């Protein structure tokens, strides 16, 4: 039997076809687009820049290692942020075992200067410092629902908890953040 070398046509490598052949390359491109958001989420979890950068990088590495498991059409951001959150939990557990305390190194989060007006920066810094004082469970839930915009059901799936627990964590977080309303610039 004669093997037809040119069949099937190699549409994936046709210049201008717009289809990326390597899933790894595509995943890497998506990671790059998600990077600022991933790092920001990591910073919300770790509360210090050194750990956040390490965590965001370790997440990228884990995502690329598991690139074959990603099914196109499913929610990439949900998948990546879940990996990030699970890596951080494992790290905290390991630190507790090794040195008796968890991940409690907190930076004062300076905002990049010059990017926004000073008044806005003061309000942002106030919000961030208040969020960083929330207990870990409330903070990660708040980040997923209020900052990242996931629904209760999606966040429950990512955190592997019932929707009712998402609700009680958010209610508790809202009460703790209520003092921010007193100097709400929007009011």
């Amino acid at each position, binding site marked *: 039997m004669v093997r037809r070398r040119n069949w099937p046509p190699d549409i994936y490598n046709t210049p201008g076809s717009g289809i990326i052949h390597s899933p790894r390359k595509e995943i890497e491109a998506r990671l790059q687009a998600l990077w600022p958001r991933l*790092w*920001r989420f990591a910073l919300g979890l770790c509360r210090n820049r050194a750990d956040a950068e390490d965590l965001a990088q370790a997440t990228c590495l884990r995502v690329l290692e598991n690139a074959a498991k990603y099914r196109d059409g499913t929610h990439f951001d949900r998948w990546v942020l879940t990996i990030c959150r699970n890596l951080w939990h494992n790290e905290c557990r390991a*630190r507790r075992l090794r*040195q008796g305390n968890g991940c409690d190194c907190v930076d004062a989060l300076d905002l990049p200067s010059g990017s926004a007006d000073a008044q806005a*920066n003061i309000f942002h810094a106030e919000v*961030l410092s208040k969020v960083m004082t929330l207990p870990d469970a409330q903070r990660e839930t708040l980040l997923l629902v209020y900052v990242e915009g996931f629904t209760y059901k999606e966040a429950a799936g990512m955190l592997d908890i019932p929707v009712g627990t998402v609700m009680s964590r958010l*209610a508790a977080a809202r009460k703790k953040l209520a003092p921010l*309303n007193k100097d709400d610039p929007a009011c």
Partner: protein
Amino acid sequence: MLSDEHLTAWLDGELPQHEADLLQRRLAGDPGLAARIEALRLERARLVAAFAALEAGAPPFPQMESPPAPPPARRARLARSVAVAALVVLVALAIGTGYWLGSRPRIGDWRTEVAHYQVLYVPDTLTGLQPDPARLAREFSLASARIGRRLDPDALSRIDGLTLRRAQVLGFRGQALIQIAYTAPDGTPIAFCIMRNTGGRRSPPKNARLMGLASESWQDAGHAYLVIGGNDPGSIAGIARQIRRQVGS
């Protein structure tokens, strides 16, 4: 009595429509309920804006290299074993005939540069650096990200007679160069270094004396490796063998 969770779900638009309508109607004639809602009020836009402002300070996206290839099929593995066996025979022949002298790293080769750096190490450089698992975990995590390959501090601390001291990210001609530092029981500094193998050519273990130090280097498809330190080639070969087992190269 409505729970705070219920009110929160209403504020977040997560209640079914009929329940939301019911609550809306109750709210009009219930000042107590309105006060409870006020205590739960949160400006989501402020949260979003504050976290969005952080993004401008994000570090650059890290350069990623290919992760290790998935394990080959049995047939390919067999073929590789045969190839490795053939390479071992060739290397043995080459060493036997003195050929290996010709393959000594040239000036400008990264291994030579590492040797220039390593020769400055004395026992005091590292013996004061106590192995701290948390610090090592952070250093290895950064090194893994930079080199595009997972390096496990636990696996790499299981090298007979050596104490794992530190993993550092160095640079050579714009490429990351990872140096993992050990000390022998007598304090002799030993380094295990890794760079990306941009050419992709595999190379079996080769020993060489660099700047008076014993060394062994090898390459797999993704990375190039070097173990260097002390002056005993036999001991370096033994260390390199154990390291290859631990990193699976």
